[in-house]
């Protein structure tokens, strides 16, 4: 069962709800769901609550899933909207956070400039740091595109952004913001280091 494809697991679950089938889906996607939730709610405990609620929403509406998109895309969109709902409920109205890199200059310049080639682990740490400095939505687009193997169309479905070109523009902007931050973080050695 661990090797079953999502579509087979879902078909089996729809036919006869089974703990084991559900657990396979949870184990397969909880890490991704957690990453999405943590991207928005920031706190680890709150992120686990959001993930749990997302899986319950998935369970309640699984009968509506017709396979029009990948199951992962559908689930990530549930996690995304559950995260947004959580923020709205706990922090009031949701405002679109913009990349304000200047605001983070102290933080960026706090570390010593890096010279020479970075090993992969350190490079990844810097990228993670840069992801935290760009807006939540831009970080989300990058995470979905690079880490969760979602296409531009699928990102549009997950984040409810109509039009492929709109996603493309946002992905470009997110990467440009990342690049600027990394250039600042790596003190002019970005080209050699990245």
């Amino acid at each position, binding site marked *: 069962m661990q090797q079953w494809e999502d579509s087979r697991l879902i078909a089996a679950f729809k036919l006869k709800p089974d703990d084991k089938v559900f657990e396979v889906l949870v184990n397969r996607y909880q*890490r991704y769901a957690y*990453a999405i939730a943590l991207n928005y709610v920031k706190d680890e405990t709150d992120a686990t609550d959001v*993930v749990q609620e997302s899986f319950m929403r998935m369970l309640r509406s699984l009968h509506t899933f017709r396979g029009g998109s990948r199951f992962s895309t559908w689930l990530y969109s549930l996690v995304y909207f559950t995260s947004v709902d959580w923020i709205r409920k706990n922090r009031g109205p949701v405002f679109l956070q913009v990349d304000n890199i200047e605001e983070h200059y102290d933080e960026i310049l706090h570390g010593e400039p890096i010279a020479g080639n970075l090993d992969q682990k350190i490079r*990844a740490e810097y990228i*993670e740091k840069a992801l935290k400095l760009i807006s939540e939505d831009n970080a989300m687009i990058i995470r979905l595109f690079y*880490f969760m193997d979602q296409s531009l169309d699928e990102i549009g479905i997950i984040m409810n952004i109509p039009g492929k070109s709109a996603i*493309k523009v946002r992905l470009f902007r997110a990467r440009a913001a990342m690049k600027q931050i*990394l250039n600042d973080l790596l003190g002019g050695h970005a*080209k050699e280091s990245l």
Partner: protein
Amino acid sequence: MNKTEINIRNYLDGSLSGEQERKIALLIDKDAAYREEFEELIRLRDGFDNLLLPEAPTGLTSKIMSAYRVEMLPTVFPPKAKMENKFEKLILNSLLLVPLAMLIIYGGIEFSHANIHRQVLSEEIKSSWIIWALILLNLFYGTRLVIKSHQFTNSKIKIQ
């Protein structure tokens, strides 16, 4: 963002047509500026590849599965209980309606004799075993329904 970067990003994202893709591949091969930009973006992409997603906390699976079990109780079992409920309601209703209809019909005979105060139920009804059987059945199903609904509520409370 310059045009070279946009073209290469589109190339790496796989969002170009076959012809455009070949054009950019050729430019990367021949043009030094394109090649330099391409290599830089590849390094950035590799950086993303090495980035690990945060580990989900231990115990998240069991937390979700506990919520699942609570969630599934009312959704898996109740539809059946609901169906039984509906079925029983139908029986109950028919059991109530049939004797009521018979009472009206037979009672109507008595009523036409203007004997309503002294003898609402005719002797025929009083001695009809069908009526009494229906009333008893009615009582039986009603009691069963009440007991079952109590059992279901108790099991729900226990699990929660």
